[in-house]
């Protein structure tokens, strides 16, 4: 198997509404994602990071350019890409256990892989909450369930669309550690979208800085700090300053003339 799991080549995505307002959400995006890496897209709102994630998930299609997963063009959703949204993604009518088992059930694999459900409930530390419904558990627990639900299909890539965006900072740190643990367990490539610089540095192998109007890649940084990373460490702080500067500079740039 090739070292590159996902190849994004010259992707453009333009949205236009009824009033003919045209928004160039993504402009000529090219990037290679390595197998097993933790990659983060960071940028202010409107930089197209969520759009890019939806394209990878197969929930949207580019106007031009290609997305290749293991050399095959992405066409619609498939279970080799898991998808976790910011909040409200759990099915309120299903218990924690049934939410996690959903992927197995719709694929007819539940009877064979019942043990996986139990395993994941244990991994995310929700023993005893199997029968609870989503509204009965905390936001942090709910996101852990959402991550386990996506991982139970053993996806090649796990796509995380600001999964910690709606959580308080303690819970957030807790889930970040859980994510790294689950990544080690499953070996999945993880692609995260966030606007939290600390989160990006804490988790990522590489950080892709994106800028808005039109959405494009500004820079790609390697994070060479060994795990476990210390949020107050010298390297960490230096990197943080670097990224913030890049984000600020990027937004201060004059807008190109050809955009509206």
């Amino acid at each position, binding site marked *: 198997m090739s070292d590159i799991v996902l190849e994004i080549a010259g992707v453009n995505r333009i949205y236009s509404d009824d009033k003919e307002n045209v928004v160039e959400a993504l402009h000529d995006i090219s990037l290679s994602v390595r197998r097993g890496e933790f990659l983060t897209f960071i940028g202010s709102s409107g930089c197209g990071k969520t759009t890019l994630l939806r394209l990878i*998930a*197969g*929930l949207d299609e580019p106007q031009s350019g290609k997305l290749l997963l293991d050399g095959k063009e992405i066409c*619609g*959703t*498939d*279970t080799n*890409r*898991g*998808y976790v*949204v910011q909040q*409200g*993604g759990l*099915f*309120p*009518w*299903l*218990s924690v256990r049934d939410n996690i088992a*959903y*992927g197995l*059930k*719709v*694929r007819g694999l539940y009877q064979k892989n019942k043990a996986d459900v139990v395993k994941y409930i244990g991994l995310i530390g929700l023993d005893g909450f199997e029968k609870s*419904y989503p*509204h*009965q558990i905390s936001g942090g627990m709910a996101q852990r369930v959402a991550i386990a*639900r*996506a991982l139970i*299909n053993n996806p090649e890539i796990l796509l995380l669309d600001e999964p910690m965006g709606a959580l308080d900072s303690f819970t957030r740190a807790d889930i970040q550690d859980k994510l790294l643990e689950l990544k080690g367990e499953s070996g999945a490539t993880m692609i995260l979208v966030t606007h939290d610089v600390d989160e990006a540095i804490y988790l990522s192998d590489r950080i892709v800085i994106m800028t808005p109007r039109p959405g494009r890649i500004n820079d790609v940084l390697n994070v060479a700090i060994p795990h476990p990373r210390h949020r107050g460490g010298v390297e960490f702080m230096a990197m943080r300053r670097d990224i913030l500067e890049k984000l600020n500079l990027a937004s201060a740039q004059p807008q190109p003339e050809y955009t509206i």
Partner: protein
Amino acid sequence: MKYKNLSALRFVLSVALTIAGFVSAIIVNAAVPQAAAVKINRYEYFGGTLDFNILYRYAAAGIIILYLGLAVFAYFSEERRVNYVKRAPFRFALGVALALWDILGTKYLLLPQPFFPGPAAILETFLNEPAFVLENTLYSLKLYAAGFTAGVTFGVGTGILIGWFPRVYYWVSPVLKITGVIPAVAWMPFALTLAPTPFTAAVFLMTMCAWFPIASFTAQGVQSTAKVHFEVAKTLGANTAQLVFRVAIPHALPQIFGGISMANGFMFTTLVMSEMMGQPGGLGYYIQLSRVWSAYYKVFAAIIIMAALFSIILYIIGIVQNRALRWQKGLVK
């Protein structure tokens, strides 16, 4: 009134109060002389003779036993004890009302006759023709079961189609909106002429009246399913059929039950109306038949059966609904 720290004495007094009303009803029935000239028929049952007064006393005794049983049941729970105490004055009044009604309706015949018979006279129906009453009750039940099944199936089915396919919404929802406001019984002339049997005619009418509320509520529930749930289900491997059956329908279930409970009221009305106008049986038919013979006590008896029957049906639907929507518990008030 305060119900906290209910004393044992207070509970016992409440039990006494509860049954006192019905005891007084029995005493009044047995002790007050029959002043008005009322023919009291005797019936042979279970190797003995019964008249309506004896049956009435048995019924009142039955109610007393029921409330004593409830008292024993309530005794072991604080919440149930409080509820029992709260209801005691009303139950007492019920018994006293029976006694007064007995005096006015049977003993002295002061109420306009034959429209307002006494309570014992109404019970005479069950001595007079129990098999025929049962037969008509079962006919109503059968008709209701058929109409309910057809109405819910048809309503939920079209509701899902309307909610899922924009094209079906475009073509069917205007039809639904127009036919929905027409009371189903207005179709009765056509139904009775065109349907092969009166029974299918009534089933058709009940389906018509259930269709509008159930279909429109179901469609709303399907349409209001969050996009994110469909997207997540897709990434988890759900196919289109599973998006309908494992996302949209579970999401719409609260609305579906809302539609069913609304439709139920219409269905009861349609059921009785169609029985009164051209069915070979049923409680509505029984009312119509009794009215012709001015046997108003039988009309009352049929009304009492209806009240019991429809309450039981609503109760069962309520149980099913609570079970199906238990995930909502604590989510909505």
